[in-house]
Each structure stands twice: as structure tokens, then as C-alpha cells.
């Protein structure tokens, strides 16, 4: 024990083993995830969307807000009257739809990331406190969550936006509040099933405090269902934000947000199909891809379903 070299070797071996273990966990995860072809396709589409969102200012052929006064409602390139200048056509004030869609990807992914981050952190905090302390704290918190869940989520989001005022940021806050109880419930259930396990008791006996027990001992073992729920909430957030935008309560024109684009296109529904079709298709493809990834994650992370 006093020999310094022996101590060094020991530590290296430990580190090496830990690295190997982490790799094997990742390998196993990828093995199960990649067995689901839909999930891999979904992951590719999501990757493509992220790339498009990041590169939008570079690859978009036009300025998304530039109104071309000589090209109102130009059809897409493959239709009579279309041209390669505006590949997916233009809207009622002559803006290039493809460029607007590319910039719209930034908004949708940004909305998803922000909403999931807020509701995930909030939900984990609330769920941890409820599940760890139990008793009246738990009862109070879960009753409040029940009340939030008693309202249809879109209606509650609309009412919250009515209080906060229309706009993208307020819409994101409203959606995060509406989605948050799902994370709280999930965390609470996971914490309650974990907190009676032996490793938690042993950590307690070793003298770990409340915070350490909550965040370092219990929480990492509850992450699997939370990751799956976070993925599914990501798609819900994009859908709800688009719905709010469509109803005029989310991002405001001329923001190239997909739902807002649809709201502006509504009156041309019977005259110019492309103005309506492409923004919605972008929403559908993105949400579908994220849900595919979510299904794949659930299959790969849920040990109950894993080998069935």
C-alpha cells in the first residue's frame, strides 16, 4: 500500500476498466438502437434537420424575409410557371418558401431544445423532491400536477399565452409549463422505486446527505425513462408551438416559423397548394423523425421490453 508505483498502476487499471465498461454500455445501447431501422432513419433525418438549421444562412438561396414584388405566388419548379430561382415557389408577398423553411428549422429545433430543457429541469426538481421526501410535500406537489393535467394542454397553453402576451418566448414558456408535470410524475415514480434499493441504503449508511443521495445516487438510475420522455416531449413541443403559431398566439409574422407560415398561407389554401403543403410537411417530417428516434430509444433503454 505504501508503494507509490503500485498505487499508480492500480488507478490506471481502474480507469481503464471504467472506460471499457462505459464503451460496452454504449456498444450495447447502439446494438439495440440500430436494430430498429426506423430509429436509424429518424436519427439521420434529425441530423439532416440540424445541419440545415445550422447552415441556413449559408445555404438558403434567398433572404427569408425578402419580398420579391415580381414573383407573387410562383409555383414550385416542376409546375408550369415555376423556375429554378424559387425551387419550392413563393408565398403571397413573393418570399422564397425554401429559404423560409430552412430558417424555420432553426426556430423549431430551438423551441424543442428550450422547452424540453426547461420542463425537464423543472420536472426533475419537482419529481425528486416529491419522490424523495414523500408525505404531505408529495401529496401537495402531485395534486398541483393533477390540476395542470386536468386542462387540455393546448387550451392551457393558449390561456397562459393570453396572460403572458402572444410571442415565441411566451409560447415556449407556456408549453414548458404544460409539459412539465409529465417529467415530474415520471421522476417521482422512478425515485420511489429506486429509493428502497440496497445501494441507496448503503449510501445513506455511508453518510451521504440529502442532496448527494438525490442527485448523485438516485437520479442517474432514473434517467432512462426521462430520456425517452424528453425525446417525445421534444416533438410535442414542436407540434404545440406550431399550433400556437398557427392560431396567431405563437411566433408573430414575418418570423419564418412553420406554424406561423401556415397561418399566413391559410387564405390561399384553394389557390396555391404549395404555400400550405411544404411548411406542414416540414413539421410532419421533423416530428415523425423525432418520434421514430424516441421509439428506438425506448426499445434500447427499457430493459423490460429489451429482449421480448
Amino acid at each position, binding site marked *: 500500500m505504501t508503494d507509490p508505483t503500485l498505487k499508480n498502476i492500480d488507478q490506471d487499471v481502474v480507469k481503464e476498466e471504467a472506460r471499457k465498461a462505459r464503451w460496452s454500455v454504449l456498444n450495447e445501447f447502439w446494438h439495440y438502437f440500430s436494430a430498429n431501422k*426506423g430509429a436509424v432513419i429518424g436519427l439521420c433525418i434529425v441530423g439532416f434537420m440540424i445541419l440545415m438549421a445550422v447552415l441556413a444562412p449559408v445555404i438558403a438561396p434567398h433572404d427569408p424575409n425578402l419580398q420579391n414584388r415580381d414573383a407573387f405566388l410562383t409555383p414550385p419548379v416542376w409546375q408550369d410557371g415555376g423556375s429554378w430561382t424559387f425551387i419550392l415557389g413563393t408565398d403571397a408577398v413573393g418570399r422564397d418558401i425554401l429559404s423560409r423553411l430552412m430558417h424555420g428549422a432553426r426556430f423549431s429545433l430551438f423551441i424543442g431544445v428550450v422547452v424540453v430543457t426547461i420542463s425537464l429541469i423543472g420536472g426533475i426538481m419537482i419529481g425528486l423532491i416529491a419522490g424523495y421526501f414523500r408525505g404531505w410535500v408529495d401529496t401537495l406537489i402531485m*395534486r*398541483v400536477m*393533477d*390540476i395542470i393535467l*386536468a*386542462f*387540455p*394542454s*393546448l*387550451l392551457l397553453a*393558449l*390561456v397562459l399565452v*393570453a*396572460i403572458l*402576451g402572444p410571442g415565441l418566448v411566451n409560447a415556449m414558456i407556456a408549453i414548458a409549463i404544460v409539459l412539465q408535470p409529465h417529467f415530474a410524475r415520471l421522476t417521482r415514480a422512478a425515485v420511489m422505486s429506486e429509493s428502497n434499493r440496497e445501494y441507496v441504503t448503503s449510501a445513506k449508511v455511508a453518510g451521504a446527505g440529502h442532496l448527494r443521495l438525490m442527485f448523485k445516487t438516485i437520479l442517474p438510475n432514473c434517467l432512462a425513462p426521462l430520456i425517452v420522455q424528453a425525446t417525445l416531449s421534444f*416533438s410535442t413541443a414542436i*407540434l404545440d408551438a*406550431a*399550433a400556437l403559431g*398557427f*392560431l*396567431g*398566439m405563437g411566433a408573430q409574422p414575418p418570423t419564418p416559423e412553420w*406554424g406561423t407560415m*401556415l397561418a399566413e398561407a*391559410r387564405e390561399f*389554401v*384553394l389557390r396555391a*397548394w404549395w404555400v*400550405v*403543403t411544404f*411548411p*406542414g410537411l416540414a*413539421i*410532419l417530417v421533423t*416530428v*415523425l423523425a423525432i*418520434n*421514430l428516434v424516441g*421509439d428506438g430509444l425506448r426499445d434500447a433503454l427499457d430493459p423490460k421490453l429489451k429482449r421480448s
Partner: protein
Amino acid sequence: MIAGAPLWRLLSFYTNMLKFLLNKLVLIVPTFIGITIVAFGFVRVLPGDPILSLAGERGVDPERYQQLLVQFGFDRPIWEQYFTYVVGLFQGDFGTSIATKRPVLNEFMALFPATVELATCAIIFATLIGIPAGIISAVKRGSWFDQLTMGTALAGYSMPIFWWGLLLIILFSGTLGWTPVSGRISLLYFFPQVTGFMLIDSLLSGQAGAFRSAVLHLILPTIVLGTIPLAVIARQTRSAMLEVLGEDYVRTARAKGLEQVQVVGVHALRNALIPVITTIGLQVGVLLGGAILTETIFSWPGIGKWMLDSISRRDYPSVQGGLVLIALIVMMVNLTVDVLYGLINPRIRHQ
């Protein structure tokens, strides 16, 4: 004793059921209080003066303001205001709409049948297609039918329904000209509203073509509103069915030499349907949320469109009243589903 035993059993069944019901009822009390607190607080956290929001007036002189202050009870302590509000709710006082100056409850009740009609058609549509699709997918697991159905279901689940509605309008109303674009019935027909349900009223009116017109107006909104529930029900039926098909009693039924139809239709389906019924019940909240979008797209005069219109024209008493009524409906439906679940599944009741 021989005659007494079943009677005793029956009594114990009823007391058990009663206990179960009471437990459920006690649980909804805090939710009800919470809902009323949310609605009560809603007008008080709005930007601007709550008194002016409730009255729908602006720039009033101090005298009128004092009058309104007393009228809405803002001169009394907050707990008394809340208490008065809840007592009012129990007496059917849900506020007065600014837009129409009529009681919110009357407004709501006048529009509610339209939403119920649409939501009922949507859930019937979703169930009639979703359950058989889910069963066949489970029985033929891994087949092309299963993969196609589950792919479609996931797409339906990911569908922005407001866009889906616009697409259907482009195809069926624009290109094909089969269905009307908006409303509940053609303006050519005029008859008294007896039940508020257009399908029934148009039949009662006896006017030729009225019923056909009502049906045509219903088709697209039904499909749009039913899409997400359909996807959820199909997925849920499939997974419930898969679980049940692996159970011992299904294997026993197979071992007895029963036909596939009998095994699936009788032994498996009955048990698989229990979680599916819960899922259908839980879709009611989803339907009422989806009704906001669907009714807006098709100009369907129901409570979803009314809520959105009320929010946009700052008719806050209507929003407040509608919020409570919708939450109460969702709560009651969930309670009914819970009780039904207990009735058909004794294992839950005895817990």
C-alpha cells in the same frame, strides 16, 4: 345458510363498490378546488386591471369604477371573493360574456352540442378503425400489414392536425369538390334546433337532403379530429394484444384446439380491451384540445372555436367560465372511465 351465501356476497360486492366510488370522489375534490383557483386567479394575473378586464370597459370615470369594484366584489378580502365565486359556480353563475352580455353558461350550452357531435363522431371513427387495425397488427406481428399500419399510426401521431385539415380541404373540397369547406350544414336548410345535434335535427326536420348535407359537413372535421386518437388507439390495442397473446390462458385456449378466431376474439380481446378503454377515455382531453384547431379550420361553431375567439377578443369572463366548464368535463369523464375500469376489472377495485 345456503340461500344466504350469495346474498352476503352481493352485499360485499356493493359495499366494495361503494367504497371504491367514495375513494374516487374524495380524490376529485382537491382537483376541483385547484381548477376553481386557477380560473379565479386567471383574471387576477392578467395584464391590466382585473376589474376592467371583467367588465370589458376602458377609461371609465372613478364613479363607474367604484360601482364596478363593488359589483365584482373586489372591495372584500380575497378569500371571501373566492368563496363567493365558488358558491356562484354551484348556482350556475359562470360569469357574463362581454361580447354578448349573456350568461357564459348559456353561451357554452348553446355551442356544446356541436362539439359533442364532432368529438363523438371522431372517437367512433378512431375506435372503429383503430381497434381492428391494432388486433390484426398484433396477430400478424412483423408482417407487411403490421409494419404499414404501425408506420401510418406513427405518422398520424406526429401529424400537425391543422395542416392535415388544410390538406384535406385542398384535396376533397378544392380539387374533387366532394365536401363543403366550412360550417355544420348548407345555408339552404333552415330548421329549429331541437337537440342541438345536427345529424338528429336534420332528420327530424324531414327536409330532403338536409341529413346528407349535415353528414358531408361532418366528414372532414371527423377525420381531422379523429386522426391522433386513431393512431393512439391502434398502437395501444396492438401492444395490449401482444401482451395478452403471450399469457398462459391464451396458450391453454390454443392447446384446447380452439380456432384462431375464437382465441383472439374471445379469450385475448376481452382482456386486451381493458387498457384500451382507459386510453379511449383519456383521449377526451386530447379531443377537446384538438377541437380548438379543428373547429377553427372548418369554422365549426363549437366551444373550441368559441374559446379561441373569446381569447382573441379579450372576452375574459367567457374564457374564465369556459376554462372551468371544460376542466370539469374532462374531470368527470376521467372519473367515469376510472369507475368503469373498476367495474370491468375487479383486480383494481380490490386494491
